[in-house]
């Protein structure tokens, strides 16, 4: 049974370190043995504006944040205005003594308002920027979390170089915690005393994917910054030298995708990525990958459109685009993982599938996944899970034993041709052409070859479809209500399902990761015993519900959110009734 389920929210201006503070606090909670999920809410600006970071911590796994806040760490008075009405009765507010409490903001609030000289403590013991440290330390004290976890996370951030700064932070933390203890003691009981747990990693899905890409042997990445994909590019760039990758921040997305195609053609695992607007610019390049049959992985992190839309907000509105964009018709795989470990797995699978089919694999994620950190057992990200399948890749030695002239684009029963990258001796001297080409690679306009090429693509698509996995089911095998989700809508829906069942209802959840080619038979079977189907998506048109109907004939109701904000269980339950 869940004993602890606490929600923290840190609010302040952009530039006040709300996001890094939040991420650090989440890590600290995990070190205490708690499961966490933490989500930032931020504007498209660098300084100013109101940002906040919400963390839910529990002794049982949690899947999404909730609407109620137990502990509010208010770095400015705006935070009190914005979030006071979300406060639960059992909690506390941490706020600087000097911060003005806006009129009426906390009227009727029955929790503890911990007013402490946070900025003064920071200045006295180090510097003003350490006010975050003071606030988090005070919060730790109020909820009974071992201060060492907070101090540990913060000081590690300064690494080797930060002796003096780390020490100052430690002082600030201790001083703030001491004063909080003196004035308010421990407010929340039972508190967050250390509990045993296996080692947990706290990470977002972008980094989980990027880590997976490195483990999967990705050696080349090119990209152009665009929220919310940027952190994948930055992670890879940050690890490039240590892990032997070439990572290129290109002149634009068109350059990026075509560089990736060129690298892939050389026989190395290659990827690119973007958000929708940048992906738009890439689709011609993707068709080149299809024509010359190179394996390619693209990470597509969605955000609300059209055009620039809402760059720091979330949406799942690019599914049909991922499937149908780009001219000509050619097979591809679209995966929409839902958790950090699934993003990690998606990376491992994507690079294998891409090579097996010498085709494009799109991993579809979104802004929510890119910034939401979750604690997950570290063992889920073990290098030992990595298996490499390079499909029909040939070595120079292998091609020489073939005993026949090598044909790069040979027609085969499964549509996939043995692949010898260039630079591998005389047999590797061939043309890879974006025009229709013969098995040998030369340009042709022969109608029969055109048919053969289309059939080759069809065969690949059929092979892909056979490999696609059935959706996951969570909850009871049979239920009155089946919630259908894909990608990040899972978390809140999972919470909603648990709540429905806890309240005597009957619901289960079917989560799709393998979206395209939709494994129609497996999907029909997975949904065969269902009664009421409700498809939950963060878009305005119910794209997955459409796909499901188009491919399987099954009809689901749609429960949609499209204000750019993440789904919560509360939102789902409120909208399910209707």
């Amino acid at each position: 049974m869940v004993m602890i389920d606490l929600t923290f929210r840190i609010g302040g201006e952009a530039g006040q370190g709300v996001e890094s503070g939040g991420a650090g606090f989440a890590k600290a909670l995990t070190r205490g043995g708690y499961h966490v999920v933490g989500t930032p809410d931020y504007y498209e600006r660098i300084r100013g504006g109101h940002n906040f970071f919400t963390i839910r911590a529990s002794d049982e796994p949690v899947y999404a944040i909730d609407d109620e806040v137990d502990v509010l760490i208010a770095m400015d008075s705006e935070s009190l205005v914005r979030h006071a009405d979300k406060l639960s009765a059992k909690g506390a507010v941490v706020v600087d003594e000097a911060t003005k409490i806006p009129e009426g903001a906390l009227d009727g609030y029955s929790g503890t308002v911990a007013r402490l000289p946070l900025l003064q403590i920071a200045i006295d013991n180090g510097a003003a920027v350490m006010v975050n440290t003071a606030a988090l330390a005070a919060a730790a004290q109020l909820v009974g979390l071992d201060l060492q976890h907070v101090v540990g996370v913060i000081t590690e951030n300064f690494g080797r170089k930060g002796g003096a700064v780390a020490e100052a932070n430690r002082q600030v933390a201790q001083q703030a915690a001491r004063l909080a203890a003196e004035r308010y003691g421990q407010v929340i009981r039972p508190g967050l005393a250390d509990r045993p747990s296996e080692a947990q990693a706290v990470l977002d899905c972008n980094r989980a994917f990027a880590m997976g890409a490195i483990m999967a042997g990705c050696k080349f990445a090119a990209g152009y910054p665009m929220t919310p994909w940027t952190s994948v590019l930055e992670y890879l760039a940050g690890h490039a030298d240590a892990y032997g990758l070439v990572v290129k921040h290109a002149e634009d997305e068109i350059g990026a995708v075509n560089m990736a195609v060129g690298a892939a053609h050389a026989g190395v695992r290659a990827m690119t990525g973007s958000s929708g607007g940048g992906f738009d610019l890439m689709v011609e390049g993707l068709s080149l990958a299809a024509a010359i049959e190179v394996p390619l992985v693209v990470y597509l992190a969605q955000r609300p459109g059209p055009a620039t839309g809402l760059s720091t907000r979330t949406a799942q509105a690019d599914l049909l685009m991922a499937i149908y964009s780009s001219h000509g018709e050619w097979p591809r795989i679209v995966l929409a993982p839902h958790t950090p470990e699934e993003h990690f797995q998606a990376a491992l699978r994507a690079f294998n599938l891409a090579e097996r089919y010498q085709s494009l694999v799109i991993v579809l994620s979104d802004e929510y996944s890119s910034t939401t950190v979750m604690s997950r057992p570290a063992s889920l990200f073990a290098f030992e899970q990595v298996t490499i399948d390079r499909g029909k890749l040939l070595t120079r030695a292998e091609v020489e034993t073939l005993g026949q002239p090598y044909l790069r684009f040979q027609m085969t029963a499964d549509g996939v041709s043995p692949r010898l990258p260039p630079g591998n001796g005389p047999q590797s001297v061939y043309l890879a052409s974006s025009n229709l080409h013969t098995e040998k690679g030369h340009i042709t306009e022969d109608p029969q070859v055109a048919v053969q090429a289309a059939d080759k693509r069809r065969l690949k698509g059929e092979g892909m479809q056979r490999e696609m996995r059935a959706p996951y089911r969570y909850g009871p095998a049979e239920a009155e209500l089946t919630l259908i989700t894909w990608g990040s809508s899972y978390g809140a829906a999972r919470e909603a399902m648990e709540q429905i069942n806890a309240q005597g209802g009957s619901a289960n959840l079917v989560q799709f990761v393998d979206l395209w080619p939709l494994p129609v038979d497996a999907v029909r079977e997975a949904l065969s015993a269902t009664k009421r189907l409700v498809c939950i998506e963060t878009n305005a048109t119910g794209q997955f519900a459409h796909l499901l109907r188009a491919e399987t004939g099954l009809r689901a109701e749609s429960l949609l959110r499209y204000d750019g904000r993440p789904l919560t269980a509360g939102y789902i339950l409120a909208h399910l009734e209707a």
Partner: protein
Amino acid sequence: MATVQDFSNDVRPTWCPGCGDFGIWNALKRAFAASGYGPDEIMMVTGIGCGSKMNDYTRISGLHTLHGRTLAVATGFKLANSAMKVICVHGDGDGYGEGGNHFLHTVRRNIGLVDLVENNHVYGLTRGQYSPTSQPGFKTRTSPAGALDAPLNPVALAIAEGATFVARGFALDLGQLSSLIGQALEHRGYALIDVMQPCVSFNRAMDYDWYRSRVYKVEDEGHDPSDRLAAMARAFEYPGTSGRIPTGILYRREDVPAYEEQVAAIKEQALAAQPFHARPTEDYQALVKEFI
């Protein structure tokens, strides 16, 4: 050592009889044979256009890409297999029009590519529209009243943006052109060769005689290719009103490291040649620790 024959295949070019691309074709094969590299050691990346079909007609490792994307694909290929020589061969529409942004940024990057542009001042394959290098007033079906834009000056752009090898050739001067290609193949970093190419079907005014009466070799006039401003002065001669087209090496320096020399992962070995997981297992296991 590979011969011209080794770079020949049995595909017959589809170019119009008399097209300048034939000259470039011969110069390329001659330069390749002289270079000592074999067909499996040179990757020829092309775009889309008449002249971009070069690698269909040549026995060589070839990548025939998208209109305008030649340099980007080539950059990716080079970074992944820096052991191979990479040469881009594409038209002025491909290289300077649709591909202008890649051109601009590849120049600055000084990556080890030869960039040979078949500059016929027109779009050949799509049947004769004006190109970025077309003369002002050039009448085509997309410029029936004459082109209004000032012609692009590719060599001036390259010199302005830090290129380390900027040359111009002429499709009919096989000796000079193959020598330029040979030198470019040995250059450290990015090498542009803008080639004056007659198109007999869609740019009849700029025929062989037109070019022949204008081209001259900068080395014949004592040009110092290490002098950037002097190179720029030569570059300004064409396009322009001088009536002269400077050819040869306009600008060159060999003291700037190529991009690929500076990337840690490929300093010692090309990516394509490296084993699958190049680092010790513990390094990969350590990745998750960053998140704990």
